[in-house]
């Protein structure tokens, strides 16, 4: 568990980047620090591995004050991935991935084995990519290596500073999905910085929305969208509110309203199927792509009912009515 206790950071020159921040991040949780530039989100993240040290207040990891730990030891137990260039240009993909295990003096054969395992984990064939240089990779491949490298020594905590920020939208979405899948398997505590509210909603267990150094709201994505804590949060979501409320609402949550009246014999179609955990946007997309009027909803392999396009549109219209800004 990571605990922030009344943490403030003032830089030389008097800029207060973070003001009296308190929050707790549970083990295995992904907390997204969301905000515009200058909101203090990156400063907050960098205080966890002591790249920046707090001016006042304390930060604990599993009950131990990080200021009482050796910063080098501390950092080697925390994965770190940053936007864009992050990789060492003079080291191969394999060498980049092996940096932290090397610093921890793992035996060579164990490092080699781990590197291959990690590259395979992020979808890069070790045989093909191990000896390549960063310049010989696409942006998406570089970012995969960045993620692999941050996971190298199997740290319980990972800090990610806009790790997918420099990618085109399609690659970005692909990497987000892969990271979500990966994260659900390896269960790390992740602190993820972004300015993109859609990315935040997608990646987060909880979102910490920051502005001018202050934590404005810390809650689950759906709660953030449904119950903004103050005017700032409301304004920040702004015109994306409608889209976000469709994104944060799952089919599961409105399922009764989507099903036809009367009993159903079974799935109207075998394929394609909707997953109960998908968002209403995904559902809308799938109706559009398939041209069907009815799609079966499954929770894993359990059939839940046939969602009707007509009814989905009605639900969406209803949400639109709720979220329309008072004019």
């Amino acid at each position: 568990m990571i605990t922030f206790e009344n943490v403030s950071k003032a830089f030389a020159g008097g800029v207060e980047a973070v003001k009296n921040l308190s929050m707790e991040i549970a083990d295995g949780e992904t907390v997204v620090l969301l905000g515009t530039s200058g909101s203090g989100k990156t400063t907050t993240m960098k205080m966890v591995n002591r790249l920046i040290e707090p001016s006042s207040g304390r930060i604990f990891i599993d009950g131990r004050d990080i200021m009482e730990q050796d910063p080098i030891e501390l950092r080697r137990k925390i994965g770190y991935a940053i936007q864009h260039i992050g990789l060492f240009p003079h080291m191969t993909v394999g060498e980049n991935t092996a940096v932290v295990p090397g610093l921890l003096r793992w035996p060579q054969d164990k490092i080699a084995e781990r590197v291959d395992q990690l590259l395979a984990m992020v979808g890069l064939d070790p045989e093909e990519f191990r000896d390549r240089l960063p310049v010989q990779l696409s942006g998406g491949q570089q970012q995969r290596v960045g993620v692999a490298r941050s996971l190298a020594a199997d740290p319980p905590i990972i800090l990610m500073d806009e790790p997918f920020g420099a990618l085109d939208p399609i690659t970005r979405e692909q990497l987000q999905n892969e990271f979500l899948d990966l994260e659900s398997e390896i269960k790390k505590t992740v602190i993820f910085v972004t300015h993109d509210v859609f990315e935040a909603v997608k990646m987060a267990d909880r979102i910490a929305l920051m502005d001018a150094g202050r934590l404005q709201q810390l809650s689950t994505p759906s709660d953030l969208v449904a119950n903004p804590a103050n005017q700032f949060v409301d304004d920040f979501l702004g015109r994306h509110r409608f889209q976000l409320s469709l994104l944060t609402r799952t089919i599961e949550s409105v399922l009764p309203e989507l099903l036809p009246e009367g009993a159903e014999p079974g799935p109207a179609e075998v394929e394609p199927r909707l997953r109960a955990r998908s968002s209403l946007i995904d559902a809308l997309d799938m109706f559009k792509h398939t041209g069907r009027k009815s799609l079966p909803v499954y929770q894993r392999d359990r059939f839940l009912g046939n969602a009707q396009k007509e009814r989905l549109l009605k639900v969406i219209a209803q949400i639109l009515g709720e979220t329309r800004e008072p004019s």
Partner: protein
Amino acid sequence: MNRLADFFAKLGPEMAQRTYEHIYLTFVAMVIAIVIAVPLGIYLTRTRWPKLTTAALGGAGVIQTVPALALIAFIVIIFALIALPTIGTLPALVALVLYALLPILRNTHTGIRQVDPSVIEVATGMGMKPHQVLFQVELPLSLPVIMAGIRISTVWTIGIATLCGLIGAGGLGDLIIKGLRSIQMDYLLAGTVPAAVLALVFDWTLGGIEKWLTPRGVPTSSEG
């Protein structure tokens, strides 16, 4: 052909001796200059006093603006005042080292400063100690720039070392001065041609060393 044979019969042994002295002067001066300027350049990127950086780079720059001949003269006079030898290898080496400092110092400083700060931050964030950041990240990435400074310095030093003949330090300058005093083209050529060849050979050798040291993925100075 005969003339060439005569030329070498007359001047060959002396040319060999003077070339050896020239290489010796250049080599020793460069080793000392590198040992001083590279660590100093690294230190200047880390000092908390930016004025020190300005002062050191400025000082090395001022030395560079003094004509080489005048610098040698100054050193001889200063050495005379403090009762150190005024002829021979010592004053010559001091002049050569002072002259060689600037390009190495400046290039080491700028080379390390131009390493992308986000790369250094990520190295620190991953748990590298300061010396590991220096040796595993900053130096490999700035090596081409540092080597370019060393190459420039070396070529200059070979040229300036010819002036050291004036204060009895030997070297190819001896032959050139002899040629000048006696108005004999033979001597002049016997000093000049080997000096030019030396400059080329040293530059080429250092280029090879640079290529060998520079990690893949970092462009060498000649590749830009």
